[in-house]
């Protein structure tokens, strides 16, 4: 591309011969590397793997920062570049708590620079193009950054534009809420929901038909709204409807059934096979696609969750799935157990952008990143990593203010409770609420620093 300046993080282009020499040298450090890969970054310099590899981490969200921290801790002499234009960092699991009126907007906002590990070069530019055949990425400023290894952690894109009549500017007005759009939107959603809870009326909830981050959040918000209506004495004059995109309320059957029971108990009507197509904020009408055609639902408050897809730069590249359900949304074609790209062995995908069967959550990130990093380190050391990701993810599913169910599951829909016999996964507990409000954010921050 004319005008581009090749800005390989450490000058040299990758070559098989150099890779071979590097591999021979690194073999000596292999044993140490295997031991340090999953260890926190307090590792001594002597334990770190010596390498001159160029590693690019695209995206400085939860997955990107966690990966950069672990790589910086495990490697000595590597050139690690972190690419992301956004200077603010959002603790996204906290959006629901803002929307519930429990936490202020500032609770989720910090700075990317706060978590930047030593030895990592932050390039505050968005990746505009991926060239996995040329082993380089190109930023929106036209800077080309060459790599030996690439970790794609760009997150996802919220496609509000795919709902006719919907615009993020509507959030907080005309009874429209949407906690996903950011801290301000979450706060505006709380104000809209609180005003609705003061008056009562019809509340409409839904989820998109695409893959989505934190698939428990739509359910949580329906439960939270129901609780506020009850506490403010407006429940009897209100109607709540939850619209599932398919025939289940949650992807894990046993959890779906529990939620169905709770909905029945709380009087939240569940509709199935409804996908939001359009809204008319002036008339407060939502239009859903159903198997029988279009269906209009009036509302006083609606919690809109947009379709989600991989960012444009990823969708336009050779990295997404080429066939199957995830091709259209552009999720990265990675091995679900190693997070390694199916066609480009020096590319890994972690976090929301990874095309894996479950869990676009911070909990998924916490367990995906160490596995992907371990495989990358093993490549550098010329060994093989036994690390596997089983799809573990967790969702503290708030079912009322002060109670939640700590739901943990894997790719196979097995429940995998962390505290079996102590914290029952399908029981509404204050303890699970306490974990969500007290322990989750410190755990998340520790994860960003590569310490958890």
């Amino acid at each position, binding site marked *: 591309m004319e005008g581009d300046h090749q800005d390989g993080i450490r000058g040299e282009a990758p070559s098989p011969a150099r890779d071979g020499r590097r591999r021979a040298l690194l073999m000596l450090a292999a044993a140490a590397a295997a031991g340090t890969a999953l260890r926190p970054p307090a590792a001594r310099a002597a334990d770190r793997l010596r390498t001159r590899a160029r590693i690019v981490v695209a995206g400085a969200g939860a997955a990107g920062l966690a990966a950069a921290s672990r790589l910086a801790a495990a490697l000595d002499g590597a050139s690690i570049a972190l690419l992301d234009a956004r200077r603010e960092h959002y603790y996204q699991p906290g959006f629901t708590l803002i929307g519930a009126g*429990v936490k202020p907007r500032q609770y989720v906002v910090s700075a990317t620079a706060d978590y930047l590990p030593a030895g990592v070069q932050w390039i505050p530019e968005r990746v505009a193009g991926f060239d996995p055949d040329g082993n380089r990425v190109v930023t929106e400023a036209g800077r080309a950054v060459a790599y030996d290894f690439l970790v794609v952690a760009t997150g996802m894109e919220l496609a509000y534009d795919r709902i006719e009549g919907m615009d993020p500017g509507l959030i907080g007005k005309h009874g429209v809420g949407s906690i996903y759009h950011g801290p301000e939107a979450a706060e505006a959603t709380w104000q809209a929901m609180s005003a609705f809870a003061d008056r009562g009326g019809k509340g409409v909830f839904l989820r998109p038909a695409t893959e989505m981050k934190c698939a428990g959040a739509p359910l949580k918000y329906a439960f939270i709204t129901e609780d506020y209506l009850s506490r403010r004495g407006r429940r009897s004059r209100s109607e709540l409807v939850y619209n599932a995109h398919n025939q289940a309320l949650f992807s894990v059957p046993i959890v779906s059934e529990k939620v169905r029971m709770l909905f029945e108990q709380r009087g939240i009507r569940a509709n199935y096979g409804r996908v939001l197509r359009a809204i008319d904020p002036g008339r407060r009408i939502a239009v859903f696609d159903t198997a029988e055609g279009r269906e209009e639902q009036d509302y006083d408050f609606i919690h809109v969750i947009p379709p989600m897809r991989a960012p444009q730069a990823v969708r336009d590249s050779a990295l997404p799935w080429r066939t199957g359900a995830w091709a259209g949304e552009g999720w990265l074609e990675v091995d679900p157990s190693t997070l390694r790209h199916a066609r480009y062995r020096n590319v890994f995908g972690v976090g929301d952008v990874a095309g894996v069967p479950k869990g676009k959550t911070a909990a998924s990130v916490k367990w995906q990143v160490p596995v992907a990093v371990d495989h990358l380190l093993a490549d550098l050391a010329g060994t093989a990593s036994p690390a596997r990701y089983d799809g573990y993810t967790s969702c503290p599913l708030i079912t009322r203010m*002060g109670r939640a169910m700590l739901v*943990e599951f894997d790719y196979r829909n097995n429940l995998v409770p962390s505290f079996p016999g*102590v914290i029952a996964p399908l029981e509404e*507990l204050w303890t699970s609420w306490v974990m969500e409000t007290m322990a989750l954010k410190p755990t998340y921050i*520790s994860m960003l620093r590569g*310490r*958890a």
Partner: protein
Amino acid sequence: MKELDPFVLLAVLQEMLGPLLWLLLAAALLGTAALAALLVCERRVVARRLMWSEAAGVAGGCLALALMVRVASSGFIDVGGPVDWLLIALVFGAGLAGTAVLAYAASGWWAALRRAGS
């Protein structure tokens, strides 16, 4: 969650409490050491002092629960199952024991210093 690694737990507690974690650990260590030293010096348990320390401990337990409710943003304790009672007992117990130990040790050493001074 998935597994409980003590190293991870320490990192999480550090993020949660910041410098307060080290302050609490220091208070726990110093309080225990002061109590042990006092018991060695006096070679007995003073019943009256113990009773008042336990009374202070009850107040400390209640304070620990109140702090927990505040930090957890729940505004109340909504018990849903046995583990909730366990958590309440743990928090109350930690507040009670910590306050009782500190109160007994502090009042014992205060009395000892006054005796030494007079």
